[in-house]
């Protein structure tokens, strides 16, 4: 492969890495948090939403094509980026330099969390064939068990905070890298907006954890018809 081709591939991969953080990975994160937050309203609307998702046509293809592959791509390129830089926030102690450092650390935390999260939810769900209407009671039971212990609560709180930070800070990074935010004032003001957005997402996520911890309620599978 000649250098020109290598350069073009490198450029496109990194530019795409930034974009996949927003679409579809970030978009999925927002959807995931929004639907889960239904649990704070009641277990019934929460179960309906799980039923709808688990009865979607081509669910496996959606999960693989729009969630698993983009996350794997974003993670792999992310680890390449992680090892390509050498953070120096103690020597050059500026807010954005800390954001740069935390963006890398949070990315690594999320990766570990996602392995745990998938291995304890989606993987056993598919392995034991709890699909369609059987998914909701199975998954809700797993989460009820998870949030009975402080270990589970802390693991999820860390994962939620890391993910919302990484997404809102990455949203800002995407806007700068793709050239949507150029001026210093524009970058600063958008930073506040994205920080607020991240905060709202984090509260949504933590409220869901709180509701699960305070009121663990099991459900019966919905009977169609």
């Amino acid at each position: 492969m000649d250098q020109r081709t290598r350069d073009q591939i490198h450029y496109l991969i990194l530019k795409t890495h930034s974009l996949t953080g927003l679409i579809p990975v970030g978009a999925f994160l927002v959807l995931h948090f929004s639907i889960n937050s239904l649990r704070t309203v009641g277990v019934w609307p929460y179960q309906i939403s799980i039923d709808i998702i688990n009865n979607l046509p081509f669910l496996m293809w959606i999960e693989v094509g729009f969630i698993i592959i983009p996350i794997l791509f974003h993670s792999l390129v992310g680890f390449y980026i992680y090892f390509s830089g050498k953070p120096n926030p103690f020597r050059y102690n500026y807010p954005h330099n800390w954001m740069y450092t935390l963006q890398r650390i949070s990315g690594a935390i999320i990766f570990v969390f996602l392995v745990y999260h998938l291995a304890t939810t989606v993987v056993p769900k598919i392995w034991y064939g709890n699909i369609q209407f059987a998914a909701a009671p199975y998954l809700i039971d797993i989460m009820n068990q998870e949030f009975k212990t402080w270990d589970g609560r802390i693991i999820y709180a860390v994962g939620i905070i890391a993910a919302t930070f990484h997404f809102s800070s990455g949203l800002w990074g995407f806007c700068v890298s793709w050239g949507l935010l150029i001026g210093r004032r524009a970058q600063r003001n958008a930073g506040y907006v994205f920080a607020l957005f991240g905060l709202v997402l984090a509260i949504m996520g933590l409220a869901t954890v709180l509701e699960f911890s305070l009121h663990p309620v099991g459900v019966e599978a919905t009977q169609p018809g």
Partner: protein
Amino acid sequence: MNKKIVKLKIKRRDKPDAKAYWQEFTIPYKERLNVIACLQDIQRNPTTQSGESVNPVTWDCNCLEEVCGSCTMLVNGKVRQACTALIDSLEQPVILEPMSKFPVVRDLQVDRSRMFENLKKVKAWVDIDGTHDIGEGPLMSDKVRAQRYALSECMSCGCCLEACPQFSLTNNFMGAATFSQVRLFNLHPSGSMLKEERLEAVMGEGGITDCGNAQVCVEVCPKSIPLTESIADIGRQTTLQTLKNIFMK
């Protein structure tokens, strides 16, 4: 602080691949000393604090008014020009080190030719020569003139690269200074004729996508050049160029 003497601790290296070592020097205090004046004092009488006679410390400097960038080094751990590093405002002992992201030539001298090579790669000039008289170029608005003036103040000192977490001695990242020059010459009405070639040069390994938005560059730039705006603007220009390459060619 003892006003009678100035203590300096200098990281030295005899030749490019030799091992670095530290030496301490004490010189008499004078009012309004800068780091360069201290180094000149050591040069006159190169004796360490412990009385050992050594080779004089070597360094680069030229203008002594922070416009040439050649005396850039780490002063108390942070990158800056030694000529404007005033002893009265520094903690002692004053620790001097060569820049860590460029190959050391000797003592405090480094080889920054990588920056020049990058400027060549991005064609940081305005083509005005032809085989015949190509006439006058288009006019430039005063707004663009003012914008370009700020960018043209870059003296290739390398502070932005030294402080950048993405720039290292071994990778090929171009860094803020280079991207800002791409913006400078793309803003020029005649210079913009090479715009696509400049953008292609930063759309690869070591190019604009390798920026991690740590924004330390703009914090340490002695000329207060809006480097992060330049990076975002080159981000926009390369995005548009990509769309053009994919959908319009």
